[in-house]
């Protein structure tokens, strides 16, 4: 049973394993080893028997192959209605066949299943809204990813990502000290412009515990500063935890079920330890999905809820504008046409459509909806981990055409995108197709138009 040095069935749990993978630029050796990786079919079948529950079994059996899901999938539309891109075909030819063959599949099958699970589905869950039976291929592909991960058939970047979570409880190599130091540093850099600015760490019983995406700490710390400034202006009693601050989950994208559980438990432990009234997560879609929607089940919480009530950043912004905690200077509202990218993970999966519209009504004078929009919106084109997988860049570029055309049809040159994944996908879309657009999170836009109370202004 050949197991590679880098590509194997063992998850990454040590810094040494992680460094070996990182040193293999673009996973060249990793993917060569994958070509020889055996499938442990008895173990695969045992996992399926143990974990394939009645809902998924029923879905696989009752799918009528009616094709109603076809037009719901942006990959199908972007690939000239290629029949092999029909969601039901994609799941039946992978998970369906794997189950029907009782796990007796070979290396070539696993390669096909991996390429399909990560480059032909972003787990956006749109198909589930159009299937007459409510079959959700996104849910099934997430499950299939777990089976593939257990056998070592997972894209190189996501093996690294899940390993990061296991080692650092963050998707990047950011330690507790790194994180706390970065918070202090952001305070230092911005307090001149924002007197009294604080970045409270581990404050018990705060009204809000704020959690983030590790990339903000590692590569984009200004995002942290902007969040702190807006909480400061709104007069919030808030804090961040020194541990359990990372809400994202590349482990979820990788199908690393053990890693998923470890990650969310660190966030829940911070909630239990600091006892805040509620949790607010940064402008990230999958972080919210992982920690607020899926996480309680991974952690085995019987309530199906996070230990304290949890909110996406757009919910906090909508509330702050509605209650007047943040006030917009009418003269500074966005005048140009502007559109909004609905993130699958908190609009479709958590019903936050109206929060987004409410925010736009405060900040924009010419808001233009994409069509379709809200819970019917198409995935940005980079969800489910696809943004970060080099092996599938070409397929991603093709898929991005759907979002490109949606944006172009609005006539807007500015896209508000309160989700890191969507933000990246739209940036890459512009890099490839040059349609002349700009994109932004909410925080920098709000900072340009919010009225600063007199007592918080810097002295002249």
């Amino acid at each position, binding site marked *: 049973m050949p197991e590679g040095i880098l590509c194997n069935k063992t998850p990454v749990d040590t810094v040494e394993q992680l460094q070996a993978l990182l040193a293999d*630029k673009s996973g060249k050796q990793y993917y060569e080893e994958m070509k020889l990786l055996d499938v442990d079919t008895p173990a695969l079948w045992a996992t399926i028997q143990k974990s394939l529950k009645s809902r998924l079994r029923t879905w696989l059996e009752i799918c009528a192959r009616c094709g109603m899901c076809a037009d719901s999938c942006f990959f199908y539309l972007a690939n000239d209605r290629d029949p092999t891109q029909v969601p039901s075909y994609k799941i039946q030819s992978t998970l369906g066949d794997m189950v029907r063959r009782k796990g007796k599949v070979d290396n070539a099958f696993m390669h096909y299943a991996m390429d399909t699970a990560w480059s032909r589905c972003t787990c956006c869950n749109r198909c589930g809204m159009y299937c007459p039976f409510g079959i959700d291929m996104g849910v099934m592909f997430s499950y299939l990813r777990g089976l593939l991960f257990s056998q070592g058939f997972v894209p190189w970047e996501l093996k690294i990502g899940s390993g990061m979570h296991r080692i650092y409880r963050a998707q990047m190599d950011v330690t507790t000290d790194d994180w706390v130091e970065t918070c202090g540093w952001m305070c230092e850099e911005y307090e001149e412009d924002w007197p009294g600015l604080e970045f409270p760490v581990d404050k018990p019983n705060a009204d809000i515990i704020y959690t983030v995406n590790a990339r903000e700490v590692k*590569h984009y710390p200004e995002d942290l500063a902007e969040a702190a400034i807006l909480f400061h202006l709104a007069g919030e009693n808030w804090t961040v935890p020194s541990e359990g601050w990372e809400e994202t989950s*590349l482990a979820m994208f990788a199908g690393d079920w053990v890693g998923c559980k470890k990650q969310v438990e660190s966030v829940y432990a911070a909630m239990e330890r600091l006892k805040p009234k509620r949790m607010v997560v940064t402008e990230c879609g999958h972080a919210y999905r992982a920690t607020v929607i899926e996480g309680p089940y991974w952690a085995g919480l019987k309530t199906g809820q996070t230990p304290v009530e949890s909110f996406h950043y757009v919910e906090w912004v909508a509330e702050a504008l509605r209650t007047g905690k943040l006030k917009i200077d009418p003269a500074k509202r966005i005048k140009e046409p502007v559109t909004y990218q609905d993130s699958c993970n908190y609009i479709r999966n958590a019903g936050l459509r109206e929060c987004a519209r409410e925010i736009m009504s405060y900040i924009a004078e010419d808001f233009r909806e994409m069509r379709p929009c809200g819970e019917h919106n198409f995935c940005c084109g980079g969800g489910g981990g696809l943004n970060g997988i080099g092996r599938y*860049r070409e397929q991603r570029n093709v898929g991005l055409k759907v979002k490109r055309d949606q944006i172009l049809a609005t006539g807007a040159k500015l896209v508000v995108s309160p989700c890191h994944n969507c933000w990246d996908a739209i940036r890459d879309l512009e890099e490839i197709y040059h349609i002349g657009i700009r994109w932004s999170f909410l925080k920098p836009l709000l900072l340009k138009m919010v009225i600063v109370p007199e007592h918080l202004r810097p002295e002249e």
Partner: protein
Amino acid sequence: MPTVEFSGKSFSVDEDGFIDDYKNWSEEWVQYVKAQEGIDELNDEHKKVIEVLREYYEKNGIAPMVRVLSKVTGFKLKHIYELFPSGPGKGACKMAGLPKPTGCV
């Protein structure tokens, strides 16, 4: 693997346009990325950032946090963005010949 030609040199790049092998980095690569990133003129501060990134990568096999970059160079965050408008994680790493950082970047 795609290649790019610049100033008589040929570079293999990955699917995101990052240099394929850290060891193939050269002054011509820096000039190539400079044009791509819309940077008018490279000064000693750009060079300092590149030097720090490369030193850190050689030692640790991964790009540093912005905090580390700021501490070692003594540059404020805003200034790093003035030097590399597409950000330290993307433009600066690309110019320094580091691989594209993994994860959500």
